[in-house]
Each structure stands twice: as C-alpha cells, then as structure tokens.
C-alpha cells in the first residue's frame, strides 16, 4: 500500500482527552496524598522543652514604636514561636527569625511586627529550670522555678544523666504548680545532672493508658464487628442475588437505610430501641462495650451486605446449575462452588466493614458514651483530645488510626493475593 492510500480523515490525537482524565483524576489523588502528608509533617516529632508561662500579653503593636519590648533574664533559655504577624525578634544585634530556643545575653528583646497596628500573635516562654531533686521510696520529686503546666498522667522524658534508673519516659504521678513526681526504678540513686523534656505527642499517646485501652477496644470491637457482619452479609447477599420473592424491593430499601441514614441517627435509634428491651439486656449493652460493637455493626454490616450482593451477582448461576447436575444440593453447591469463588468479595467486604467500624464515631458517642477505659475507641480518643484543646494529641491518635488501617489493609491484600495465586 502506498502513501496516497492512507485515509484522509485522520483521527485527532487522544492526548488532550487523556490529559483531561489525568487532571480530573489526578486532582483527587493529589488531595489524598497531600492530606496524608500534611498529617505526617504537621506533628513535631522532636521532644519539646518544658515551658513556663507566656510572657507576651495579648494586644496590638502600637503604630509609632518599632516593636514590642519584653524584659528577659540574662542567661536564661527562652522559647520563641512566631505568629502570623511577626517577622522575628531582635536580641541586641542578633536577629532571630526562626522558631525555637535561644539564650538571653541581655535583659530585653524586641518583637518585630510584620504590620503595625495589628494583634500580637507570637509566643515567648521561658524554659523552666529544675531547682531541686528529691527522692523517697523510688518516687522522684522535682521542683521547678516556674509553673510547668504539666498534668497528672502526662509523660516526661529524662535525659543526660549518668545515673541508672532515671533516663527514659516517665508518667507523672503527682503535680503541683511548681513540682512534679514520677516513679523511678529501684536501683536509682539521687542525681544532679538531669534534663527534662516533653516527648512527642505520638509517644505521649502510645504511652497513655487511656489510649492504649482505646487501641485495644478498637481492634477487638472492629474484629468482632467484621466477623458478625460477614456472618450476616454472606447469607443476605446470597439470598438477594439468587432468589426472587415477595417483598424483595421492601427488603432492598430496608437494607439501604443504615447506609443512607446519618450515623448519629443510627446511634440515637439504637438508644431509643433499647428503652423497649428487658432491663437486664439494656443494662448489659447500653453505655458498655457491647454497645460499641452493636453501633459499629449496624452501619458496617450494611456495607458488607452490598459488597457481598454484588459479588454473588457477578458469579453466574451457571456454576450452581452445573454443580446441581453433578450431584450437589443447593447447600453443597454454595459451599463447594460459590463461596470459593466469592473469596475475594468476602475479603473485600470484611476489610470494608473493618475500616468502617474503625472510623465509626457518632453512633458510638450516642449509644455507648465516651467513658475513658470503658467505651473509648480511637475516634472517641481523638474527640476527647480535641476537646481538651490538644490538636497534637488528636493528630497523634489519627496517625495511630491511619497506621492501624494501613496494617490491616496490607495484611488483607497479601492474604487476598496469596489465595488467588495459590
């Protein structure tokens, strides 16, 4: 064939079409990746210094002055954090533009505003010093020269000490304004060289007994919920995909209710429902851990049912028919032929149910409450951290959830792969 025989109508390039697909799809993927990245980057993973009270007063920069003068104690270490309206601070001749610790060598500092006449948003706090260390029955008590703001149950890290039994993260057992106590090991002897810091929020969260409990409860309740969901979703999915019966459209609508209903309403409806059950049952469930499982189950199961139904619908009836002629009854055909083919779907439904329950919050809050060490699951922990004003703590709990979900997904995927290829 020569060149002239080529068709005149040449098809336009697919490039622009593909580009649009990539842009539309890519923007979503980008947001997902950026979100995850922001979570990871936002947390300050380094230990934080223990800081005293805020030195900067709220107010505005005056129009005529160059900045805002704060008196310091020479030789003391301070922590500076720039706000949105500061370029930095000037300490004598040196200009400090970065956040962090610095040591004062003169007795005042000038905070430099970006715009005059606007609010002060920076923070300047002295690092607390330890004035005395005492020990009694393996409990060490530190006195500080300034209020440290640490609370009972928080964690501190002791470092730079040559003596045994001190270094490491300790839970604060007792606090006063300028004092705190914690347990040390038996072999500890009184020490002088000690450096105190606040471990990063991730360690704080993982060390906290409340959050340890909530991790445990989350893992256990999600697993129970998943097993229950599959237990129910497989038969319902199979029935709905294989049989025609009166009232099927009605059941179809019923099955969708938990998907469409706001989760909070599911929790409230459960709570109302349990006013009508015998007392012993309601006492056993409401505001106890079974309520957590039930609240998760009501929502997660609906998703598992949908997945299983689609899975079974995609398996042609032909296979069952062949199995029937080969000597199976319906039950044998299901177990020997249909279920093995639905394995991927079962795994998908299970993972979906697990992930849904891990994130379930509203219905649990309403139906099980948010009692520490009792009905606290990871989303509840995140919520409680937020309520206590600890964004970092909330983020730490979120990271734990992300990591847990990631592990489960990877395990499920590898299991799925193995089963398909074995």
């Amino acid at each position: 064939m020569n060149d002239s025989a080529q068709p005149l109508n040449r098809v336009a390039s697919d490039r622009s079409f593909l580009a649009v697909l990539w842009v539309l799809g890519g923007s979503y993927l980008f947001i997902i990746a950026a979100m995850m990245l922001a979570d990871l980057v936002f947390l300050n993973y380094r230990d934080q210094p223990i800081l005293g009270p805020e030195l900067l007063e709220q107010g505005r920069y005056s129009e005529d002055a160059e900045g805002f003068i704060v008196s310091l104690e020479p030789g003391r270490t301070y922590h500076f954090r720039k706000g949105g309206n500061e370029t930095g601070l000037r300490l004598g001749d040196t200009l400090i533009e970065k956040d962090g610790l610095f040591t004062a060598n003169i007795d005042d500092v000038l905070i430099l505003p970006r715009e005059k006449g606007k609010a002060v948003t920076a923070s300047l706090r002295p690092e607390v010093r330890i004035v005395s260390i005492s020990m009694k029955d393996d409990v060490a008590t530190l006195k500080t020269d300034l209020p440290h703001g640490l609370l009972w149950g928080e964690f501190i890290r002791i470092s730079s000490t040559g003596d045994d039994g001190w270094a490491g993260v300790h839970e604060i057992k007792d606090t006063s304004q300028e004092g705190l106590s914690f347990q040390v090991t038996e072999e500890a002897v009184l020490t002088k060289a000690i450096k105190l810091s606040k471990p990063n929020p991730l360690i704080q969260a993982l060390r906290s007994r409340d959050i340890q409990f909530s991790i445990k409860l989350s893992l256990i309740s999600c697993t129970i919920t998943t097993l229950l969901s599959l237990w129910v979703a497989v038969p319902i999915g199979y029935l709905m995909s294989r049989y025609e019966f009166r009232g099927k459209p009605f059941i179809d609508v019923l099955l969708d209710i938990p998907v469409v209903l706001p989760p909070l309403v599911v929790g409230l409806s459960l709570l109302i429902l349990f006013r009508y059950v015998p007392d012993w049952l309601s006492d056993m469930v409401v505001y106890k851990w079974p309520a957590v499982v039930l609240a998760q189950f009501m929502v997660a199961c609906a998703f598992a049912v949908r997945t299983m139904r689609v899975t079974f619908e995609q398996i042609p009836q032909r296979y069952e028919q062949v199995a029937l002629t080969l000597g199976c009854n319906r039950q044998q055909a299901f177990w020997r032929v249909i279920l093995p083919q639905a394995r991927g779907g079962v795994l998908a439904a299970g993972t979906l149910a697990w992930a849904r329950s891990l994130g379930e919050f509203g219905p649990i809050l309403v139906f099980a409450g948010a009692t520490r060490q009792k009905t606290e699951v990871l989303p509840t922990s995140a919520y409680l951290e937020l309520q206590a004003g600890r964004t970092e703590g909330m983020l730490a709990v979120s990271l734990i959830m992300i990591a847990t979900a990631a592990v489960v997904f990877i395990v499920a995927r590898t299991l799925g792969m193995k089963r398909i290829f074995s």
Partner: protein
Amino acid sequence: MIAVEQLLIRQGDFELKDIGLELADGEYGVLMGRSGCGKTTVLEAICGLRGVQSGRVLLGGQDVTNLPPADRGIGYVPQDGALFPRMKVWEQLAFSMLVRKLPQADIEARVRELADNLGIKHLLERFPHGLSGGETQRVALGRALSIKPRFLCMDEPLSALDEDILEEICELFTKTLKKENVTALHITHSKTEASRLGDVVFHLDGGVLNKV
C-alpha cells in the same frame, strides 16, 4: 431413553407449549433453532434446572419431572463450559465423585480414565484460566461424564471452537459418548454440526418442536 411429553413452560410472556421429543437409548439427538427460541429452556427443563407448569420428563422410562437435578442421573455441559474457576482440572473431573464421597482409589482411576480418553492428561494440574476453547470443552465433557450418567445434555458445546479443531472434537465426542454408552441431546444452531453428529434432529421454532 430421553423423553419429554406435552411439556408446558411459562416464564413471563415467554411460553413453550406441548413440547415433546423422544430419543432411544444410545441415540445422539440434536436440537436446533434460532437464538432465543427456547432451546436452552427445554434442555434446562430436562436437567431439572427449571420448573415446568405441566407435562412430564422421562429418563430411562422413569418419571423424573419432580426430581432434583442431582437425582436424575443426567450430565450437563453448559455453553462455554462453565468450568469452576477455583478448581484444578482434576478437581473438576473428580468433583461429582467427591460430592458423592466415593472411595479415593475409584476417583483416581476414573479421573485417569477420563483424562486418557479425552486427551487432557497433561492439563490435570492446571486451572481453567488459560485453557483453550477445545481444552475447556473436553474438560467440561469429562466433568459431566465422571459419574457415568446414562444421559447427557449439551448446550452449544462446540459453538466457540475454531473450524480446524471442530472436526477433531466432534470425533472425540462421538467416540467418547459411544464408549460411555450415553444417550445425548445436543443444542446447536450449526447445520454442519447437526448433520455431522445427529442421529435425530429436532427443530424448535415459534414455541413448537418438530422432528426433522
């Protein structure tokens, strides 16, 4: 003997009325007709996969109209084979014997015999995914014949095959069915297949079944 008497099958608007056919023992019957005319429906009724409104299905003189498929002693080769995706070829061949809990030794012997006869010995350890059309049909036939049924229903088993292996598979089918002494009913829309295989040819058109 496969016999169908005055069968009435109704499904929505679709109706097959007064369907009757008879095949003597060892005969190879071919059922022809346009797509959508109800050939598969008749076959499914014979196998017990579809309920009938009235009429009777007789296999070997016994009325099986109300028996479940498993108790009819009839093999079924569906369109495109429908091999079980998660089972190796030998598992497919052994399936009905495993369901019936036959002794291990008998199962192995029968699988070997079938694999020899159908020339699929080298495929026993493979999964159906990736088998060629001809190989799939041979396995599907072997699976249907594994418990030595006296009757066999095949739904367009050869329609997906290439011309050049069609001849070979046809020969294999007739030979194997003779050897197993099976009365077979075969659906096709190909005249070549019908004349090549059929001792008796039936034609289904407009809900009426005629012997040609």
